């Protein structure tokens, strides 16, 4: 197992978000975590790269317990993890090329020429050739998401974490992003975790889907298995029927 979360609890004040959340991501797979908005999907994902630390429980990446690492050790782990943020989180003051180059500058032996070449390769992979000199404010929502993905893959990470990669996009751009996620996995052989509440997107990109409900994984299985699941909570979510969720609660 490459990424493991064991019995993670996390609260913000009185709001207990995760209540024993456990997850095991297998090498090379794309695992989607679905659930309603505000249920704690992004909170769970941020634990993987140490942006949040659990109140209880353990988070393991590549055999290392994240919350026990020193700052330098944590940076080493982060160099192997690409993170695609919900709203791309591109740096406003930098061009797209500079955004992509930022992570590359932290790698020893990367010259300016090598960085330029790698930036071009990554932008080509997400079909944004020639966008190096544009600023994030000059990009559309879909282009920003693609640029965010390009920045995440620039350092050739072993793991890719996607936080709501298709939220707020039109159906066509959503399909484009989903195809990019599949293409990235096939070409770079990365292990991915995709946080989403878009079931069509989850069916397209994921090998397995886990549903987060009330702070724990309620269901875990393949796209076919989740579609055949009879749990009213799972059915209520995937069919968009709140009455089933309320009945189960």
């Amino acid at each position, binding site marked *: 197992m490459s990424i493991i979360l064991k019995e993670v609890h996390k609260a913000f004040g009185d709001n207990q978000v995760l209540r024993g959340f456990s997850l095991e991501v297998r090498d090379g797979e794309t695992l989607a975590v679905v659930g309603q908005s505000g249920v704690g999907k992004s909170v769970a994902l941020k634990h993987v790269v140490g*942006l949040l630390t659990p109140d209880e429980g353990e988070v393991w990446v590549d055999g290392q317990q994240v919350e026990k690492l020193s700052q330098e050790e944590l*940076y080493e782990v982060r160099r192997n993890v*690409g*993170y695609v943020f919900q709203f791309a989180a591109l740096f*406003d003051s930098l061009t797209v090329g500079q955004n992509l180059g*930022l992570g590359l500058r932290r790698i020893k032996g990367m010259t300016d020429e090598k960085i330029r070449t790698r930036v071009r390769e990554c932008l080509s992979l997400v079909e944004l050739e020639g966008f190096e000199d544009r600023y994030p404010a000059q990009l559309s929502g879909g282009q920003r998401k693609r640029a965010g993905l390009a920045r995440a893959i620039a350092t050739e990470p072993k793991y890719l974490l996607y936080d709501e990669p298709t939220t707020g996009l039109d159906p066509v751009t959503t399909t484009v992003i989903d195809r990019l996620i599949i293409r990235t996995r096939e070409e770079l052989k990365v292990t991915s975790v995709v946080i989403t509440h878009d079931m069509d997107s989850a069916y397209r990109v994921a090998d397995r889907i886990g549903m987060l409900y009330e702070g724990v994984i309620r269901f875990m299985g393949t796209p076919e298995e989740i579609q055949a699941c009879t749990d009213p909570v799972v059915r209520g979510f995937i069919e968009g029927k709140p009455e089933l969720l309320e009945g189960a609660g």
Partner: protein
Amino acid sequence: MRMKGDSLLAPFGMLGRSAVDTAAQIGRWGGLASNTIRALPRIGIWGRLLLGQMARIGVDSVPIALFIATFTGVVMALQASYTFTGAVPLYFVGTLVGKTMVLELGPVLTGLALSGRVGANIAAELGTMRVTEQIDALETLAYDPVAYLVVPRILAGILMFPIVVILATSVGIAAGWLTSLQLLDMSTAEFMKGLRLFFEPWDVQFAVIKSLSFGLTVTSIGCFFGFTTEGGAEGVGTSTTRAVVVSSMVILVLDAFWAATLL
């Protein structure tokens, strides 16, 4: 009876919560300060950003600092002349303008103006970066956000505030001199006589020490409130306001502290 007792205790409860909140804020500021000191050896990260921040924090602040200093110098000269009204020799206008600009108005007015321009700018920029996850993104790219965002701003503030203050003070004195020549029928020699009368080189060192501390105050408080921003646009607005208010208050407290300890 119980309700009456509760309402009587309510102000104490609020006071207690406010004290706890303030103590927690000071503790978090201390945490950021200690992370900043720990990030200082990461020159590879902040070194290439320092010049840009010096330009933004220092060079870009020169026009507003000079504007304020010019009119302060003019008013100082006119008010000194009005106050003396024959009882005190007019060359004391030079003394008053010089001494007041160097010791007090140059550093403090520049510090207050820059707490608005620089402190608000830093808090708003870092606050926006916080709420749009850009600071989280920096961390995922294996950057220490304190080394990348905080250290160059604080160092730029410490280095550039004294330069801006010296420039502003010089321009303020020059404005006072020109006012004395044009509106008070004083000669340059009279003004200079007054200016030199009680001048001590220590006054300049005192102004530099004050402006160093103001630079540290404005930038560190701006970074702190920006870094700890929560929520969306409203959170950024709140952080920006707090940065300006708190740094202005600290500047005035420091002003009194330095006067009490160094003069």
